């Protein structure tokens, strides 16, 4: 059996296992779910290390410098820390060096000491494992939250407020359809904003405008819902097409065989589980 055929059988088994949830929570679904979570957790951990921490953090702190670059004592001391890390990561030299290559990590041409800050904050996060100094993790969290609030404030103000005000300038030189469309969007935006007034009671004309605003929001939500359902249907069609492809002789009838196996197994499981349920109910 070639790797491709073996892969197709795995794909079909996992797809049908997930679909089996439509019947009930069963061993096939549980197995697929746990494989999915376990594999993805491991995958993301590896991706985060090799695509972020290693090249972007270590790579900036200990880049591979040219031969003619700084050979001062400070530089030597700095790279001796790198050697210590390498010593630890290779298990005192028993493993091949991969995280910390000889002479530094390629990608940057100068040491960027500013990256010591995220490095230290990252260590603080790990100190959660040491109860006595675990509180230091809060500093890292506080930095992330504070920095986010500051950064987002300007970007949201620019994109959500200024550009919105600018977009309210309807082009009256255009076609009638476009003008009417622009005016509808304008009224929808104004009334939608009124709905989100919290410090004023929604009564009288203010309440009426707020109600119009919520109608606009609901129309938007309805359209968005329909659009997403269409997208989901196309995803389902993609899966069905793949299952159809794998049901051919080329793939040793993967889909019908596994489908039959799952149905029979579920039937047996249901019979046995039903008996257990009746026993526990009695």
């Amino acid at each position: 059996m070639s790797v491709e055929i073996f892969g197709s059988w795995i794909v079909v088994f996992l797809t049908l296992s997930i679909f089996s949830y439509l019947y009930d929570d069963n061993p096939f679904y549980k197995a697929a779910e746990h494989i999915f979570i376990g594999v993805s957790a491991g995958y993301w951990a590896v991706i985060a290390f090799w695509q972020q921490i290693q090249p972007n953090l270590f790579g900036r702190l200990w880049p591979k410098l040219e031969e003619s670059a700084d050979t001062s004592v400070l530089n030597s001391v700095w790279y001796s820390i790198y050697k210590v890390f390498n010593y630890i990561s290779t298990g005192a030299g028993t493993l091949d060096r991969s995280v910390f290559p000889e002479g530094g990590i390629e990608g940057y041409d100068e040491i960027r000491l500013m990256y010591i800050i995220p490095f230290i904050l990252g260590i603080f996060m790990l100190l959660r494992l040491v109860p006595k100094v675990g509180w230091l993790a809060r500093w890292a969290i506080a930095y992330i939250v504070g920095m986010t609030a500051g950064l987002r404030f300007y970007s949201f103000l620019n994109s959500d407020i200024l550009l919105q005000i600018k977009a309210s300038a309807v082009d009256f030189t255009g076609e009638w359809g476009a003008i009417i469309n622009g005016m509808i969007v304008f009224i929808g935006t104004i009334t939608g904003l009124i709905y989100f007034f919290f410090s004023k009671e929604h009564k009288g004309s203010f309440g009426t405008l707020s109600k119009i605003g919520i109608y606009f929001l609901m129309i938007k939500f309805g359209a968005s819902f329909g659009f997403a359902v269409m997208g989901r249907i196309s995803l389902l069609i993609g899966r069905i097409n793949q299952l159809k492809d794998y049901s051919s002789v080329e793939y040793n009838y993967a889909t019908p065989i596994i489908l039959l196996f799952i149905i029979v197994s579920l039937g047996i499981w249901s019979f046995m589980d039903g008996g257990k349920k009746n026993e526990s109910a009695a």
Partner: protein
Amino acid sequence: MNKKLAISILVYLATVMLYSMGDGYIFLENTTFKFGVVALVSMTLYYYIDRAKSGEEIYLRPIAGLKAIEEAVGRATEMGKSVLFVPGISDMDQVETVSGLILLGHVAETTAKYEAGLNVPVSKSIVMEAGRETCRESYLRAGRPDLYYDDMVHYLTDDQFAYAAGVNGIMIREKPAACFYLGKFYAESLILAETGNSIGAIQIAGTGSPSQIPFFVTACDYTLIGEEFFTASAYLSKKPELLGSIKGQDIVKGLVMASMILTLVLHGLFQAGWLGFDIVTIFGN
């Protein structure tokens, strides 16, 4: 005009004037207008926070979803079941996640008071840390630190749909009586809300993601739409600084509406040839 308002206006004008003097030299070129807007919003918020702190009462219209939080936890306690809290799949660099964790603090305090179980599966390690801190503090505040344990906030995976599958699994096996979806969500929102619906849990959702609100509206009992979700922490905590900021935000919304109407009218007059300048040009590109 009261003294504080006059001082605020003067400080604002002085700040913008100083900035405009450095425009192109110390600061980026042609950014005075944007800086003016940032400063105006900041000053407005600060002014109303200050007023709220000095004792001014601020009215807030009721939001049904927030009242239902306590009801949902109470229901879970009566049924002897747990409460599930899903803070979304984004990291702490998203405002929605931060808001979700603030609400987690309130939910955790309520579960501590009612002695109901709490389960918080997360998809980001930093969110897990922040979530644990939040829950620990809430249980301490409720006078029940003995009920807190680290694993009530636990990591599943970073992957979007694997996370959704994991949360689904928790739902169908533990059958929580109340499910909270408060944070930033993407395509997994309907999968989660539908599963919660199928197990008969009372569901309260809140997100700022416009494309996901329809799914929550369809499948949940209560949904905090957009800004309702962001203001929830102020509603629940009743802290003057937060209440003041909501009043300030309402004033900013009023200013935005006025600016939109003004822009529409002035742009129309420009296009009709009755005005010499186009207001749209001041917003830049």
